[in-house]
């Protein structure tokens, strides 16, 4: 059996079902709506596994599922050297959101990452601690800021309501996913720089872990042909 992991609820699940459905593979929940069991029609040898989008990267890396749908941001955040552990099979064109850094609109002097770095140096000298950036995307943000040469910052973990941390003075800036930027503006924040840390979308991934059976490989080939990817 080739196990395909798909987000177990919400828009991401519905859109994933639509995406496969348009390509002749029907995914559906079996049993009651609360039950996380699934069924696949239109191709043999594929088993649907419903799970949280955040767990898909780990399950792929561990080889407990062979294919999985999740946000490209989650794969990059949760797996080190992600592209050695999983492979992008197909970007799916929905669930788009940008991971961005935002600072207060009142920071008229800060528009680029160079500005952020300089402001962080001065902030640390003035306040005795590093400039705090609230986020739940620790790895992505850290690697991005390292590549861009930003120093004197620290990450503070924020699993929700991240936009509010600046007003509450538990952080000076935030790094978060945004699709429209409206919540940012409502909280007096603006997006830094001219490109996001990562432009995320729902993506079909394949685990690179060894140990696929010949049957799994054949099923994957048939699925690829059917999906046109």
């Amino acid at each position, binding site marked *: 059996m080739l196990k395909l992991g798909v987000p177990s609820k919400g828009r991401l699940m519905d859109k994933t079902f639509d995406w496969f459905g348009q390509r002749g593979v029907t995914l559906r929940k079996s049993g009651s709506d609360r039950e996380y069991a699934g069924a696949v029609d239109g191709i043999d040898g594929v088993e649907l596994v419903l799970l949280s989008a955040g767990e898909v990267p780990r399950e792929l890396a561990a080889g407990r599922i062979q294919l999985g749908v999740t946000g490209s941001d989650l794969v990059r955040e949760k797996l*080190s*050297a992600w592209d050695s552990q999983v492979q992008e099979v197909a970007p799916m064109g929905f669930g788009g959101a940008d991971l961005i850094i935002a600072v207060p609109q009142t920071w008229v*002097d800060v*528009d*680029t990452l160079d500005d952020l770095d300089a402001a962080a*140096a001065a902030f640390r000298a003035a306040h005795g601690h590093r400039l705090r950036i609230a986020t739940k995307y620790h790895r992505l943000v850290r690697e991005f800021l390292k590549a*861009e*040469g930003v120093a004197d910052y620290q990450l503070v973990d924020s699993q929700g309501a991240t936009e509010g941390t600046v007003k509450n003075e538990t952080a000076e800036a935030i790094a978060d996913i945004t699709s429209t930027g409206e919540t940012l503006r409502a909280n007096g924040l603006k997006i830094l720089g001219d490109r996001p840390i990562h432009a995320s979308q729902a993506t079909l991934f394949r685990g690179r872990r060894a140990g696929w059976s010949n049957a799994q490989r054949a099923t994957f080939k048939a699925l690829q042909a059917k999906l046109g990817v």
Partner: protein
Amino acid sequence: MQPLEIAAEAARLRALFEAEGATAVDADILLSAETLLDLYGEDIRARAYLTTDPFGGEMVLRPDFTVPVVEQHMRSHADPARYTYAGKVFRKQEDVPERAHEYAQVGFEVFDGRDPAGADAAVFAAISKALDGLDVTPVTGDIGILMAAVQGLKTSQTRKAALMRHLWRPRKFRSLLDRFGGRTPPSPTRTALLAQEDPLADVGQVVGLRSRAEIATRIAALREDAATPPISGEEMALIDAILGLRETAPNVLSALRDIAVDLPAIGTAVQAMAARLLALDARGIAVDALAFEGSYGRTSLEYYDGFVFGFSANAADMPSVATGGRYDALTARLGDGRAVPAVGGVIRPDLVLALRGDA
């Protein structure tokens, strides 16, 4: 390789350093992460294993001995002092996962301000002697020369401070230099900001901890910087020349003496290098063949600010067998302003054994 063999080799190496007058010391494996986070910020999380103690806050599995040994030394007020240690260090290998995550290090650290050139040579020679017979080649460098060159630039203190802050981040250092040298134009947002009479005029209530006064201070600094003439093409070329040096140490020394004619600020650092080569020669090091690279030791997370060196295997693909350097500034950071000139290096006994097995 057997752990016991590695431990035996580590003991042999440590005994060699004890014979050089070093006192054997040890450090906790589980350390408070505060010092390392303070020194290196978030980058340390990609390199070391951090965990949380319910009462002690963030803790780290010892990523090297230098920081705890410096802390012990700064508390002891001994001067001069020589230390040696042997034990495991723990490193995340996010970029090269197949590299060892825990491995033994044997170190030799010399805290002695009386004769820096002599101390540099003592450490290098002791490590060189310990690696005797192995198919390895040393490379040297000197971050003090680059630092002196930056300090000697005819430009504002603000720009020099920015360059010094990013000395260990080669890409960022280059982009700053290009900006200060007028090779990269200012961003359109910067130009627009400075075109306003008072950019803060229409700004309402400031959100967050960074105050209106701090923003105003930075705008003033940006105006001052915009009015500062670019670093000259000649000076940019001199920095490039220093970074591009890649020759035997005596040839580099001669090139640096030429550069010092146009950049007199590096004179003292060049003299220090000359003294070091004499001291190395006196200890029997083949100085004429010793490689020197102007950019050596400029990787991030390192604390070296003078002489730097590494020994790499000629035939095998492995990390450096030994590395070291001078870290005067680190002792100042950890000693509450009280600095002790210090130089040291580490050997990896596992790699020594692997090379000896190959031989």
